[in-house]
């Protein structure tokens, strides 16, 4: 399938995402420039990690207004798959494609470590290659990953199954010590109501080869491939409606 990885000024993990998709997974993956508006017929857009526009004002607040984001929002509203990793997650929240926001870590320190996240809903295009309740080991590296949302919104999100990943210990138990940044309800990744937009703080693209310390990140990308190949008609409809813009 065709992937596009958006490159903002200040993006850091775009090359790693392209490597993971192109070299490791053999996917067709191309970089998308933040000043362009054409998504080039890709079937999934990845917003990578980094410090887009220097994280000025708030993380993701400026990137949200990049020309390419107009197309990403339209693509998402048409049902296109959008995956936001770390800074990409922050951008998706700022663009209102995902609920909630990400604030400074509870410790106020930048955290760079490997964490465990439990798959809370394996029936989505981003998690279907994993088992329900499976614990994935993925790296995090962020200063602002504390997820917050209003209480009523959180309750509704939980009921709809929009919380896809939660920080746990290696055995899959939720406990405060296993919550690296203090996120509300230990939330590590959330989807929108229609499950075609997903944001997560951990970095699946940094966990795609044994040499990197683990391959659990592949499950996220493989899920997307599986879901696109499972319903080719829906995917091609989304692509054709895009190419007319």
């Amino acid at each position, binding site marked *: 399938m065709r992937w596009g990885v958006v490159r903002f000024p200040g993006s850091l993990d775009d090359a790693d995402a392209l490597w993971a998709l192109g070299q490791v997974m053999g996917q067709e993956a191309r970089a998308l420039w933040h000043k362009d508006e054409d998504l080039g017929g890709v079937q999934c857009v990845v917003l990578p990690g980094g410090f887009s526009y220097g994280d000025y004002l*708030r993380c993701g607040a400026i990137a949200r*207004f990049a020309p390419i984001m107009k197309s990403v929002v339209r693509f998402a509203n048409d049902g296109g798959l959008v995956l936001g990793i770390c800074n990409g997650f922050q951008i998706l*929240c700022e663009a209102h494609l995902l609920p909630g*926001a990400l*604030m400074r870590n*509870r410790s*106020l320190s930048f955290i760079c470590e490997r964490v465990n996240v439990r798959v809370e809903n394996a029936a989505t295009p981003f998690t279907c290659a994993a088992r329900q309740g499976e614990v994935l080991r993925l790296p995090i590296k962020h200063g602002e990953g504390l997820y*917050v949302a*209003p209480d009523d919104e959180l309750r509704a999100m939980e009921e709809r199954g929009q919380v896809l990943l939660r920080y746990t210990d290696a055995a899959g138990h939720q406990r405060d010590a296993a919550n690296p940044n203090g996120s509300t309800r230990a939330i590590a990744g959330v989807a929108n109501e229609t499950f075609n937009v997903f944001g997560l703080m951990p970095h699946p693209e940094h966990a795609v080869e044994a040499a990197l310390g683990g391959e659990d990140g592949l499950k996220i990308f493989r899920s997307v491939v599986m879901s696109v190949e499972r319903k080719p008609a829906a995917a091609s409809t989304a692509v054709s409606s895009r190419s007319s813009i």
Partner: protein
Amino acid sequence: MLVKVLVTPRKGILDPQGRAVEQSLKSLGFGGVGEVRVGRYIVLELDAPNVEQARETVRQMCGQLLTNPNIEDYTFEIEPKEAGSR
């Protein structure tokens, strides 16, 4: 005109910076310190025909960019000083 926007984390939203400052103040021995919240102060020059229109423009600025309405509140004041007359 000179616009001064004060952005603060919404009450009830976890503010890790405010909490750290609160604890530091207490550990320095400042008694009577209650909840601390750390925000942002933005000063901008704005060319607008009148204060009323400036107000509306600033509200739009806050809604679209200067604040995140999910987690932040804001107040602002406008000084009707002519922009560029420095």
